[in-house]
């Protein structure tokens, strides 16, 4: 059984068809935390592996690689979205399912762009930073 239904598969294929540069998905696997009750029966790492493999199969510019507990990763599973194979600090911690699939696919699309889609003022403000900034966005699948 595949992750995507046929219509979703076609949509993902369309969304990722015009990437301007290669994007690598590094799936980091390792010990998982105990999820909320009701989610215990899900094989998060196995599903994440199928997901990145299926996305890579649908998009010619996307490749998937899997590593066990790579350095710099604390939570598993995690997907690092890497433009041109470079770690630029874009990650998804957990299994992106339900509506959150669009966050992963959208992240891949953004990573596949050569020019940022942010407004010039935003880019200017971000490039003026003189210290590292980490943004975590907590999400849920529904």
């Amino acid at each position, binding site marked *: 059984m595949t992750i995507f239904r046929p219509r979703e598969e076609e949509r993902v294929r369309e969304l990722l068809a015009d990437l301007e540069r290669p994007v690598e998905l590094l799936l980091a696997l390792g010990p998982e935390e105990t999820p909320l009750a009701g989610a215990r029966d899900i094989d998060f790492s196995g599903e994440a592996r199928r997901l990145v493999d299926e996305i890579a199969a649908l998009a010619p510019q996307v490749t998937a690689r899997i590593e066990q507990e790579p350095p710099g990763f604390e939570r598993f599973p995690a997907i690092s979205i890497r*433009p041109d194979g470079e770690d630029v600090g874009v990650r998804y*911690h957990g299994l992106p399912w339900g509506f959150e699939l669009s966050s992963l696919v959208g992240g891949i699309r953004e990573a596949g762009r050569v020019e940022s889609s942010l407004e010039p003022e935003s880019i200017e403000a*971000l490039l003026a930073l003189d210290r590292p900034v980490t943004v975590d966005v*907590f999400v849920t699948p529904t």
Partner: protein
Amino acid sequence: MLLAYRCALAAPLVSAAAIEATEFPALADQKDVWAVPKIVVDGVPQYEGAVHERVFVQRLVAPVFE
């Protein structure tokens, strides 16, 4: 979520991660996650909900640490 990713892709000093709250409940509890999306900057909970790009970037470069 995409705004955070765009910021990380545009600026080398910014990193951005989505965190599935139901898979990491201890961390979500620690960061006072009651509603999503919940934005946490440099480990400090900031605000909930979607905001305009200008506001998002402003809150990212000048977060409130109480």
